[in-house]
């Protein structure tokens, strides 16, 4: 069995936009977002031989319209990659881009790929969640899943039910923290350096998008305490402690150890292990817990060895369940140091690579940290975790 080291060389993304008619990307196609991110990434590596890219994996949850037609291939052609570079589409809902990375990373690991592009896109304005889906009636008639399982907000409420000590107050506080950390990260310029500005056509001319539109740095505990609870009366999940509906694309360049040498690449992270795991669909938000247990076991390390954690904030409560399980503090400085999806937004299938970008950026500033991880919950009851090693680690 061939076994090669797998490296995360670089990753970028478009700034994220608010989904819907008023959002900055309402008139911009999903595939164009991928293409712009892809070219932006390749422009950072001008000497890289484009034809040495073995595959392009792009994730999207709703694979129709401008997210259909095998978007990994369409976007490669549209970006002007050589015709010899193939591409494919991937779907694991929220963990699409993460799965693009683990799948192509596996290909590198067994020596079948040297270099790949992996990323994801979700234009939730053009493709509302679950749009065009046709769930098998057996799900409900045979009670395979609860009717709540298909509504992500309801699955988040269920975490509150199961863990009553994880209160709305704690969720709100975590959410406010996320906004503040994101604002601070912007001030420090650590987010912008991995953003590819996008020119977006609008009804009032071209707009240049160079910041994440969903951010609300002014958020306070008081400000979000009385927001509506759209998923159940007197519930706990609100727009304030959940990630907003978002448009955006991400992309990363991965390479194996041979390609790193051959092309003179400077890797940011090395893939250590990954795992996906399933949980009850009705409470999908706890998915990162078993996925992380599995990934840690494969890596042969414990949670205490993890110096930095990028966990996707689909909902604050879902992050709290993870924190609670591993006995961490709500404001543990290792967790989402630069803020998370509550502030930046969560364009489903693209978020995985955003986590990796932010982890890589933190690694750079923390040479004392050896291991970090990216983890996220996934619809229909799943979680995914990738453990990474800091290539700049000076232990």
């Amino acid at each position, binding site marked *: 069995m061939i076994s090669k080291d797998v490296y995360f060389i670089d990753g970028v993304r478009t700034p994220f936009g608010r989904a819907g008619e008023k959002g900055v990307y309402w008139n911009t196609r999903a595939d*164009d977002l991928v*293409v*712009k991110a892809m*070219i*932006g990434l390749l422009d950072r590596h001008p000497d890289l031989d484009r034809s040495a890219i073995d595959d392009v994996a792009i994730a999207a949850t709703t694979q129709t319209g401008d997210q259909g037609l095998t978007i990994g291939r369409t976007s490669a052609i*549209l*970006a*002007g990659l050589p015709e010899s570079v193939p591409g494919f589409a991937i779907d694991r809902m929220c963990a699409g881009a993460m799965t693009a990375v683990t799948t192509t990373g596996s290909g590198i690991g067994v020596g079948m790929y040297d270099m790949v592009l992996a990323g994801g896109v979700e234009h939730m304005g053009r493709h509302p969640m679950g749009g065009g889906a046709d769930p098998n009636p057996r799900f409900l008639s045979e009670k395979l899943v609860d009717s709540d399982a298909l509504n992500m907000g309801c699955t988040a409420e269920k975490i509150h039910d199961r863990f009553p000590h994880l209160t709305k107050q704690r969720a709100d506080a975590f959410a406010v923290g996320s906004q503040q950390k994101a604002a601070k990260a912007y001030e420090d310029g650590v987010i912008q350096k991995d953003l*590819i*500005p*996008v*020119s977006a*056509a609008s*009804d*009032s*001319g*071209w*707009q*240049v998008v*160079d910041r994440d539109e969903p951010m609300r740095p002014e958020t306070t505990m008081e400000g979000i305490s009385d927001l509506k609870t759209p998923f159940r009366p007197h519930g706990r999940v609100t727009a304030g402690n959940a990630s907003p509906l978002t448009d955006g694309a991400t992309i990363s360049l991965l390479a194996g150890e041979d390609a790193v040498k051959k092309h003179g690449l400077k890797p940011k992270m090395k893939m250590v292990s990954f795992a996906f795991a399933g949980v009850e669909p009705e409470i999908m938000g706890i998915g990162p817990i078993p996925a992380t247990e599995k990934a840690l076991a494969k890596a042969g390390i414990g949670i205490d060895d993890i110096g930095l954690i990028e966990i996707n904030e689909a909902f604050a409560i879902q992050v709290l369940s993870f924190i609670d399980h591993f006995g961490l503090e709500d404001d543990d400085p290792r967790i989402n140091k630069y803020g998370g999806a509550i502030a930046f937004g969560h364009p489903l299938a693209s978020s995985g690579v955003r986590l990796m970008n932010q982890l890589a950026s933190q690694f750079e500033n923390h040479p004392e940290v050896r291991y970090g991880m990216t983890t996220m919950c996934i619809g229909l009851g799943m979680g995914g975790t990738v453990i990474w090693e800091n290539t700049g680690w000076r232990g």
Partner: protein
Amino acid sequence: MLEKFAPLFVDDSEVITHSFVADVALKSGKTLALITLDNLKDHTRPTTLGPLTLKELDEVLDAQEERAKNGEIHGIAITGKPYFLAAGADLSKIGAVEKKITGRLYVELGHYVFAKLGDSSVPTFVFINGLALGGGVEIALNAKYRTLNSAAPALGLPEVFLGIIPGWGGSYLLPNLIGIKNALKVIVENPLKQNRMLKPKEAFEMGIADVMFEPQRFVEQSIDWADEVINGKKVKRPFEPGTLERKTVWPAAVKMARGMIKDRLGEIPESPFVALDLIDAARSGTRDEGFKREDDVMEELVSGDKFRASMYSFNLVQKHAKNPQGAPDKSLARPVNKVGVVGAGLMASQLALLFLRRLEVPVVMTDVSQERIDKGLGYVRAELDKLVEKGRLDPDDRNRYSANLSGSLDYQAFSDCDWVIEAVFEEMSVKQEVFGKLEQFVPEHCILASNTSSLSVSEMAKNLKNPERVVGFHFFNPVAVMPLLEVARASETNDETMATAMAVGKKLRKTTVIVKDEAAFVVNRLFGVLLSEQMRLWMMALASRTSQRQLSHWGFQWIRLIY
């Protein structure tokens, strides 16, 4: 805005192209005001630059200049809505100019507004993101810097083609930017070659733009480039004419161009010569003197008969050709999945080649001997090979077309044709015989077309069982090049046949016009009048050389070829 322009703003029928402003934060920390020209119509409606459009742009530019002076912005850029920068002046407005003075005002207004791009206190840019014609190119020329999208469909200054001249600075600015030879090509030579346009690569290589970017991130990359320029990047202009070029090459090139055009077109068309005068004068003096010269000549040109006639023919060819008059409902057209060609001579072979390439269906040729058929087939295959050699045809397509081509002495080969066209000897009895024989073999729905140039189509059809399926389908030689196709409706021709003929003409990418089934149709009839006029002059004992001179003065140089 100057009071004098007020008379231009009374017409409220203009589709206004708005000037939207967005501030762009540059990487350097500075700010660029990005103006987007957008008429808020979809991608089928190019943006144009009517008087009210210019008024709005003027106000926006003034506001930006004010901000620039306050240090709020450090550069101004203009670009267009997706796919278009601007398709030039609003021709519907300029065509309507009755009064000399309003025409002049419109030209002056463009100068007045665009000059602000050249005079701004900060660097100004035009990001040529898409189609740029006439005034669209000139707005870019007036800015201090230009970027170009490598996927823009076309750039061009079609004014001379339309009987006017580039009148918003193009005649002065272009030669001073890209040198005399390139400028002559863009302003005079290309418009006279059937209004040829520039592809972005060509325009960039001539120096019309300072830098070219690929389409995917064109606006973003243009902004980054503008940032570098604002921060002191030096931009090279390799074709900008020097003193030597101005003194020697420039006047010589203009003189040579003048001689060539006179030879080709005679002296009646005005605009090429006016353009040459302006270009010649552009080698010295100031920009504003150049603009003034443009104002002066445009005042005369836009109110003249020649421009009006040009606009009429332009509208006829560009607009009406898309919806030919007298054409029946398109839905009546029948599919054409196999074509027969009777005859294998030069004309017939050219027809076979065109049908093969444009309809992409099997084509079968026949003639009186296998030898003649083989010669025809050989011609078509050789032409396909030539196209491949020139890189104008994909080898796979050559193989496909070649396989689609066959020849047969037996009319049985036409039994599954949907369309048969004859190009046999121009003799009524021969044509009647061919159609009579065809009728025994072809299916009932098959259209019978004649490429006759002068015989009566009705006469050809009269003895047939189904005369309603016969139509005149007259090409011009060389078939691949000449754009016109006359479709003659005979007395019995039905709507299905006409609709099919129009659909086939369109697929063949010809400008298809419906003509009456009268002797020689339209084109050859006009040609005949010209010819007989020359004969008349000759008969009147004028020296033949005089009559030739007379004609060449009008630009009918080609008529000499037939002697």
